[in-house]
């Protein structure tokens, strides 16, 4: 009988996340991304212990000295160790990247799901706001916001969140719009489920995968935007080192000591690469429909 043949196919339930970790292991590029992100987080947490020098101690006897065995990324115009400053600068990048994207995903996902689910004036209003946000260059929006709320890390976070939330709102809105006509939604409603249950328990988990992917890549973008604002002097204030500010200071000495600008730039490039690689890998990993019996 059909049912008996079925029972042989039944495997003990494997944990979905365990399976995803396995999938990640077979994805080389994604693995590289994970290693870069893990290293970055480790550096950000333990910067105080692993830095060979203080990030703010100035030593005018070794100003703008090139990479050597003592300072293998050289020193800047105040004689500070570039390597130590890069390690400390990772804190701001990670902090700003994660918190600002977290905030924009939070806002975007809630507004986007409500708009997609209920439609009507909420949806139209959201569309207008997202279109507006997208029609403005993000750097201008961020600059304007920083000008309004003031410089500093928190302001940068708010500026980035306000600049980026619309893209997540639109992403999840489209997902919800597509998913709300699925038959299992009607089936769940026929069971007596409320709008709240349908939206947050059933539609949400089905819609969230692309948002997680976009957010991962978004962290890379946010780090670049933070550095840009830092480069323009709007980010973290001295002596706190941020990669963008370091590069900004380095421009004055570009031809005397290029290492001051090259190494923070490299650090940022590797970081963004890490998030992008991981985000690309997540596209495959998060797809529930790919979780077939294997």
């Amino acid at each position: 009988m059909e049912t008996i043949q079925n029972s042989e196919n039944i495997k003990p339930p494997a944990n979905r996340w365990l399976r995803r970790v396995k999938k990640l292991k077979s994805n080389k590029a994604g693995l590289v991304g994970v290693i870069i992100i893990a290293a970055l987080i480790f550096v950000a947490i333990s910067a105080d212990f692993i830095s060979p020098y203080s990030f703010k101690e100035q030593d005018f006897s070794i100003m703008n000295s090139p990479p050597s065995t003592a300072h293998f990324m050289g020193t800047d115009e105040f004689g500070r160790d570039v390597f130590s400053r890069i390690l400390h600068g990772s804190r701001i990048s990670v902090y700003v990247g994660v918190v600002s994207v977290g905030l924009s995903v939070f806002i975007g996902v809630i507004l986007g799901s409500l708009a997609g689910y209920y439609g009507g004036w909420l949806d139209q209003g959201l569309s207008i706001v997202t279109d507006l946000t997208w029609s403005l260059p993000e750097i201008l929006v961020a600059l304007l916001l920083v000008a309004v709320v003031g410089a500093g890390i928190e302001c940068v976070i708010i500026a980035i969140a306000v600049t980026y939330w619309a893209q997540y709102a639109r992403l999840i809105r489209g997902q919800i719009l597509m998913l709300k006509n699925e038959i299992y939604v009607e089936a769940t409603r026929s069971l007596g489920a409320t709008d709240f249950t349908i939206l947050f328990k059933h539609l949400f988990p089905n819609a969230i995968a692309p948002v997680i992917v976009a957010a991962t890549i978004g962290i890379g973008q946010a780090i670049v935007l933070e550095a840009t604002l830092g480069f323009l002097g709007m980010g973290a204030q001295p002596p706190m080192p941020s990669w963008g500010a370091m590069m900004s200071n380095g421009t004055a000495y570009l031809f005397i000591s290029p290492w001051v600008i090259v190494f923070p730039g490299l650090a940022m490039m590797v970081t963004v690469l890490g998030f992008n690689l991981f985000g690309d890998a997540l596209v495959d990993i998060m797809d529930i429909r790919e979780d077939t019996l294997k």
Partner: protein
Amino acid sequence: MTLLTVENLKVAFKTRDGEVEPLSGISFDIDAGEILGLVGETGSGKSVTAQAIMGLLPFLDGRVSGGRLLFNDQDLLAISEKQYQQLRGNQISLISQNPMTSLDPVYRVGDQIVEGLKLHLAITSDAARKRAVDVMTSLGIPNAEKVFHQYPHQLSGGLKQRIVIAMGLCADPKLLIADEPTTALDVTVQAQIIELFKQTTQKHNIGLIMITHDLGIIAQLCDKVVVMYAGNVVETGPVASVFTEPQHPYTQALLDCIPKLGMADRSLHAIPGNVPSVSTFPDGCRYHPRCPKATPYCMKNTPETLQTKNNTKVKCHQFSPQWRTAS
């Protein structure tokens, strides 16, 4: 005892080109423990009827534009959405059209049955789980404990359909609406599921509305049949009467379409023409363009529903004295 009365039910949907009326006044009723078959071609309004009874139309840009729906003497059109929600799954359950897509892919199937239970019964998670496994076992799911923890994509169509039925049954509804529950299944599984429906309705004394376009299923399973065409009920009555002596030309044509063993080659019957779409329903009797017995009278006048001698009701001019005098 009459469980559900549908009286002159009309449904309207908003579309870009104005309102359309996919149901224009249908009537039938169903008793507890009775199985009613709702049959008709695609687009005849079967699924809309189910959605109207479930109160799902507001979510689909539609509304009931006339008539009455009485469930256990309660007027379903007068209650609030909140009250309806209490009714859905608890008193009236819908088994949706396609088992393949009726389950949420991100949850284990057992948890989806438990969800239905917990929505309506004051029940602990453990008790709900136990009850879900019991219901699953009673529906002939082997290894119910194990299947409970599977995801929908890990199950076969037959198993998924049983899970969907379990979801519909677990809160002990009084009325079950099954919208083409066997269309996506192969014939052997189909037979098992039909048998299952038969047993379940008898055991729990529930009313079942079986929506299908398979006349074989109706003959096998149902007590009463409602034949729908283009948003109207054209013929209704006990299955035995309707199938042995169909009165409406449409029912006759439908029955003629069933292939019989020993038929000569290439002699399959088909009803000429197509089902009109909701925006192009013809005037007069909606079946007249395809009806072999149509007369000019049928093109102009809308037929009444008339009682015939063998306990069926038919919406056809043939049985009215005016038609006879006019032709």
